[in-house]
């Protein structure tokens, strides 16, 4: 395989990580009840509930809390952050960066880069990779990469079963300060229109089955195989495998095809409990794995974004991980903080009934 990515030591790693999941949960059976789907339709997805943002939450507030948690774990002065990347497909402004909002909230301004990135569910990961490059090159000391979404789905569309809300954030910094170092990465992108949202339209559309083989599977497998080829690593070298998780079924399927046993996937699989948090999907999986990982363990991370592309990362946990695990709420703390709502309240929160102004 021709390789555009140089093989070199990445002088950067994850210094702090943070998660956020809103407390409201909508059972998928409730969506089936309202829209008249048979239970087969959603049971196959392996998603029991989806997380729903409260009426005063959005991708900015969720991204902020994840970033705040990442800062707590890192213990760094936010003024030392030289880049803030915000990956989302549910930005609160079509024009006006959310990255500056979060940078201001955490106290990183004004001496910092700040950008919003868009690549369907992969923008947060692109931010992570760009952060690694900026830190590794020495251009900035620390960078903050956030993936956050209050995912949209048209009411009644099958997408509604999984489209959920959550955020994950990572402080990328020098290798020597990292709780997990990134050994290598490999990115695989093509023009594949499996899922999109036209400008000024409220809901995305998708190609149904087309989102599977030519999109999700081709790109993740392409990225992971590229990483294997570049590094010589094999599935047995990894303790955990985390893939983008649009539902509870695809990540297990792609793992199987790549030769990873289920046990290595389950610790980083959060979608069955909260649905697909889009830009936070695989990154929340990584946060959950870091919450429990032991020094020396190796993690495969492969987020995916429609349109389409996937980044594969080989991540090795360092001795610093354990002292940072308890410095902020864990993914499991947010999973445990749940309050079940019905479709009616969900519809109010998401302003589905009518275009309710937020007031």
């Amino acid at each position, binding site marked *: 395989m021709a390789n555009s990515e140089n093989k070199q030591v990445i002088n950067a790693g994850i210094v702090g990580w943070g998660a956020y999941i*809103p*407390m409201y949960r909508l059972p998928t059976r409730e969506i089936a009840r309202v829209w008249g789907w048979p239970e087969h339709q959603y049971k196959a997805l392996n998603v029991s509930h989806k997380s729903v943002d*409260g*009426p*005063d*939450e*959005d991708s*900015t*507030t969720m991204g*902020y*809390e994840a970033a705040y948690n990442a800062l707590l774990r890192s213990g760094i002065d936010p003024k030392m952050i030289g880049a803030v990347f915000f990956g989302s497909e549910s930005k*609160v*402004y079509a024009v006006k960066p959310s990255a500056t*909002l979060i940078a*201001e*909230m*955490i*106290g990183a301004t004004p001496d910092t880069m700040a950008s919003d990135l868009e690549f369907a569910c992969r923008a947060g990961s692109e931010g992570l990779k760009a952060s690694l490059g900026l830190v590794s090159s020495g251009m900035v000391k620390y960078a903050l990469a956030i993936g956050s979404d209050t995912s949209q789905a048209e009411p009644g569309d099958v997408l509604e079963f999984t489209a959920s809300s959550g955020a994950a954030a990572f402080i990328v910094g020098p290798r020597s300060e990292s709780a997990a170092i990134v050994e290598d990465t490999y990115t695989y992108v093509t023009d594949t229109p499996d899922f999109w949202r036209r400008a000024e339209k409220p809901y995305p559309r998708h190609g149904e089955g087309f989102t599977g083989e030519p999109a999700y599977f081709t790109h993740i497998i392409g990225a992971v195989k590229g990483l294997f080829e570049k590094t010589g690593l094999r599935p047995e070298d990894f303790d955990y495998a985390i893939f983008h998780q649009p539902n509870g079924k695809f990540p297990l399927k792609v793992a199987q095809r790549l030769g990873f046993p289920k046990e290595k996937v389950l610790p980083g699989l959060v979608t069955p409990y909260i649905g697909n948090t889009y830009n936070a999907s695989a990154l929340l999986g990584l946060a959950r794995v870091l919450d429990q990982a032991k020094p020396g363990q190796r993690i495969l991370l492969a987020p995916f974004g429609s349109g389409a592309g996937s980044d594969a990362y080989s991540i090795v946990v360092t001795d610093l991980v354990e002292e940072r695990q*308890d410095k*902020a*709420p*864990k993914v499991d*703390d*947010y999973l*445990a*903080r749940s*309050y079940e709502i019905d479709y009616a309240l969900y519809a*109010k*929160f998401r*302003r589905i009934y009518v*275009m*309710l*102004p*937020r*007031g």
Partner: protein
Amino acid sequence: MVLPVWWRKRIPRYRFVGALCKDCGRIHYPPRNACPYCGSRNLELVPLPRRGVLESYSIVYSVPGDNRLNAPLPIGLIRLENGVRVVAELTDVVPEKLENGIEVEAVIRRIGEDGETGTILYGVKFRPALGRK
């Protein structure tokens, strides 16, 4: 809420910063031009503890404004870990579980917006504290 009104106060509201009076030693939130206690203008901005105890609360049913999206609206009188008190909106509240004395923590949420096409206002609210510090 017009744009510059909110914008110029954004830092204390985003970062939950109070003002320490260097003459009487007391802290107040939000920061003001003069100490409410002694009138001193010799003030220094200080970050406030994000955890506190709910001293009192109310569920407001007659919510002012244009819609019921945030109704009913829980509010609280919070005593922070350093003794400073704040009146603020509460969020992520299950009304049946509200009671005086529970631990709460500061978060950033949407406070309002300048109409459907205007800017969004963010600021501090308090929610029942997560189990972990």
